[in-house]
């Protein structure tokens, strides 16, 4: 199998990997914390694609499997019989549903924290935040005057 064939046959994996890497790059390289949080979401989306890709089950004649939906006309016994239709593996989908919820929650928590950071530091740029911390202006509770002190720096 030559390279092009390998690449095109597994294009879904390539997409997953590319999306993942874009996300990971963003997490590492972006100095804006909102962008970092969004990149994190992108990274996780890449992982979802990978999982979904692995759910495909091929029939012996090379076709993709059916969606694993229980039709009312089929009996339970039919589902288990060898002659029955080939279903795609539903498990990765289910897992990814959970993972999506987790990913959304992470984004939500991250954004909630970022909103507070913006309020306390007056910025969402990591360099400026580090600057403010390095100058030791934050050794105190979150009061209005402290906030203004930090804000005045920006």
């Amino acid at each position, binding site marked *: 199998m030559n390279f092009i064939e390998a690449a095109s046959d597994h294009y879904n994996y390539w997409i997953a990997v590319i999306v993942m890497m874009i996300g990971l790059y963003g997490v590492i390289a972006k100095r804006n914390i909102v962008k970092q949080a969004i990149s*994190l979401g992108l990274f996780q989306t890449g*992982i979802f694609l990978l999982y979904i890709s692995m759910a495909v089950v091929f029939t012996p004649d090379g076709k993709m499997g059916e969606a694993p939906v229980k039709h009312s006309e089929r009996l339970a016994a039919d589902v288990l019989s060898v002659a029955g239709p080939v279903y795609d593996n539903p498990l990765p989908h289910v897992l990814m549903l959970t993972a999506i919820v987790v990913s959304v929650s992470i984004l939500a928590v991250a954004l909630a*924290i970022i909103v507070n950071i913006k309020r306390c530091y007056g910025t969402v740029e990591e360099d400026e935040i580090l600057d403010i*911390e390095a100058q030791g202006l934050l050794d105190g*509770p979150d009061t209005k005057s402290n906030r203004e002190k930090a804000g005045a720096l920006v």
Partner: protein
Amino acid sequence: MIDSIPALMVVLPLMAGVITVFTGKGDKPWAWATAITGIVFAMSIALLAEVTAHGPVTYNFGNWPSQYGIAYTIDAMNGFVLFVVSLIAAVTTYYSRLSVKDEIPNDRLHIFYALWLLTICGLLGITITGDTFNVYVLLEISSLTLYALIAMGYRRDRRALTASLRYVILGSVGASFLLLGIGYLMMITGTLNMVDMHDRLQVLIHNDEYSRTIMVAYAFLLVGLSLKLALFPLHMWLPNAYTYAPSAVTGLVAATATKVAVYMTIRFLFGIFGRDFSFGAVESSDVLLTCAGLGVLYTGIQAARQNNVKSVLAWSSLGQIGYIVIGFSLNNENGLTGSVVHILNHALIKGGMFLALGCVAYRLGGTRLTHLKGLGRKMPWTMAAFTAGGLGLIGFPLTGGFIGKWYIGLGALDAGNWLILVVIMLGSLLAVIYVFRVVYAIYFGEAEPDSVHATEAPASMVVCTWILIGMSLVCGLWSEWSVDLAANAAKAMLAGFGGAH
């Protein structure tokens, strides 16, 4: 009901956590959380006794057979870790009443305790579950709630926010790596259940099939887990997160979160991949030992340079995690026993010391070195607890900290690795320096004007601190029971999956 304890261990804190939202204000959320963690602790003892007496316990959710549904499997290893986590949870919850009231606004208390119970639920869940994907989900439950809990410290110090955000980013990257690794494993084994996964992987490894995929899965898992357990040099999220979190949260987290991550690592390395793969086909021993060894030295030096005592302890935690990692990376029974017993002892010591600092923060509003100066006479009991804990961190004989180091040292010599033994000793020396710096300030320093009128912390807080520190001393003196439990766990893990067939 007795048979359902494995499920209740997780479901009870989960349900109780959401019910906390309805409990109202004042002490009610605290009382509720205390009752629940107490029950959970009792259940963990029952479970540990059952596992020790009759071998592993398996519980199938929805009565689905374990290859389809989610199975909880408790063996000597996670029975022990469950006991540690629920013990710390019970004590810190009882302790938290005044400290949390002091640091968290009154109208957020019910939210705080809801998050608190959910964190505990997640930590217990990671430990108890026998399903790899379940590990990921529960890991995220505990982490997400933990991020929020840490961020709640921002009313005292705003750096809690940035610390928490860094934890969110790095923690999520770690968890995502874990998810990827689990995905690859599922791809080749077709199962999520740990026992099945282990069996099938052994066949594959033995036949040398899919070896590259297994290697990739292993790499992702190892990096993800290392991030979660804060192995040097992937530790950057930890010091600030521990330092700026509310006192009670630090006590809980420092004693449990990384320990659970360590448990997961041991489970994956020994229980799923098997030691022949983890330390044979892939020579991870060298990598882990190098990272952990350098980490012990680096974090020891950092700890000695901190001015906030909470930071000192946070950096010291990293060093202690280094010891634990060294222990299991040696891949022999003594080393692994040392690791497991150090999970317990370090949890007790570090938990107790952070609670002692919580007492200081409660009285003085901060935990800088200057706050602690001359407190030996003002808060004798708290400071005695801190000092006893400090001796444990050093690994002074007769304290809990010594037992783990002793076994890890024996393990190092069993493996013929003198260098590691020297690293352990140098690490202890660094611990002497950073502990002594604080203890010297406590007993020989002159009190600052702000802390002249400080008095002993309230009895409930001091008692809780001493329960943990006292247990660490007891575990140092009469350590046979804990070492026995740890040795059982180590034997089970070395044999592959803890005999849960």
